[in-house]
């Protein structure tokens, strides 16, 4: 991972010196995950908040120093502030987030076990996460999608690192339970891939 770290500082230095290509590379590296995080916590406002966040990042990039994990945490901090400033933080409506794909009783999904395990897309995965309690959903997303360290997540959400660890673990456990409850079990064919059955 040293390569990645040195690549990041290279790009950061170049971007801070005004190199658009370096900035574009930083953006490509972080934006999709930022957008996914925002879709879980901000719903339909995600795109707007993300744009606003990047404008703020552009304004403050010269003042940032740190490694990539710190950069991601900084990004999330700005995104959260943007969200708060805009009063756009909305309560997530479960009815819009229920993933159709995991509806085991649906006639259009005959073999949900195989389907879900083999072909679950990012969209569906995000919907699943969004079904978790809001606070847990945010912590899981920060940890799993944004790839933040526990300490960074803790600082962002105002909890202790221990509490974050427990919440994320429980959130993931709950996701697994949900998948099982939705008819997705380890009997799916992906569970046996690479094994002698």
């Amino acid at each position: 991972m040293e390569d990645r770290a040195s690549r990041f500082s290279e790009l950061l230095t170049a971007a801070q010196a005004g190199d658009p290509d370096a900035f574009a590379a930083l953006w490509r590296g972080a934006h999709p995950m930022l957008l996914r995080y925002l879709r879980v916590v901000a719903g339909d406002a995600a795109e707007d908040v993300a744009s606003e966040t990047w404008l703020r990042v552009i304004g403050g990039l010269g003042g940032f120093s740190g490694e990539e994990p710190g950069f991601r945490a900084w990004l999330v901090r700005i995104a959260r502030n943007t969200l708060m400033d805009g009063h756009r933080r909305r309560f997530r409506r479960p009815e819009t987030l229920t993933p159709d794909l995991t509806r085991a009783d649906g006639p259009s999904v005959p073999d949900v076990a195989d389907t879900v395990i083999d072909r679950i897309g990012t969209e569906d995965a995000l919907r699943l996460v969004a079904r978790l309690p809001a606070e847990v959903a945010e912590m899981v997303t920060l940890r799993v999608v944004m790839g933040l360290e526990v300490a960074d997540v803790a600082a962002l959400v105002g909890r202790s690192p221990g509490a974050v660890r427990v919440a994320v673990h429980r959130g993931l456990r709950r996701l697994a339970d949900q998948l099982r409850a939705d008819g997705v079990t380890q009997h799916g064919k992906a569970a046996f891939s690479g094994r002698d059955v």
Partner: protein
Amino acid sequence: MVEMSEPTPLADAPLLADPALRAVVEALRAPGTEAELVGQEAVVAAFVAAQNRSTSRPTRRSSVLSSLLASKIAMAAAVGAVTVGGTAAAAYTGTLPGSLQGIAHRTIGAPEATDGKQVTDPNERTHPGAERSEHAKGPDATGPAAFGLCTAFEHGGLATPSTAYASLERAAGGKDRIKAYCAAIRRPGEHPTPTGAPSDHPTGMPTDHPTGMPSTHPTGMPTGHPTGHPTP
């Protein structure tokens, strides 16, 4: 060279032995899709505009808000450049998306957003080549549009083949003179320098106020005095 779009490793994931959960996590961390990366041009344009601004005015520390707004103009620029070929043209003709048009209106004096409706001839948008023709009008750079055109010009958002650029060139009296012309243009809403008023407007009392009696005061008696006595 490491591409930064590779996902960062997940430090601890004890639950990932569960294949269903692992599938979900992998989906969550999948590389960015084209749809997710669609805004790159706009955000890089905003970045470039911010660089230009900070290098051209190194001593001026702009507030977060003003740099934000300026960046939004650049965002607008990126959007407009695609459709019309000239940033300010897009802003002035109302072809920007509503939110960006609103920002352009507040910041560079462009017309207000019209709920998705365009305020100009839609041909200008669908036939970008037409703007070179004699029929293309474009904003009048000698009027209130000048500030917006100059803002776009200074931010590098004005394409040289665009109607807007041509208009600005006409108003300035030549390509070489655009910079000087724009330097003299003021932001809408700023008090214009009065050009017709005298510069030596009196501020105090007149200094030549008469202090004595008028010199033309009659000194003699009326000459037309009746000379005869009235008859009883």
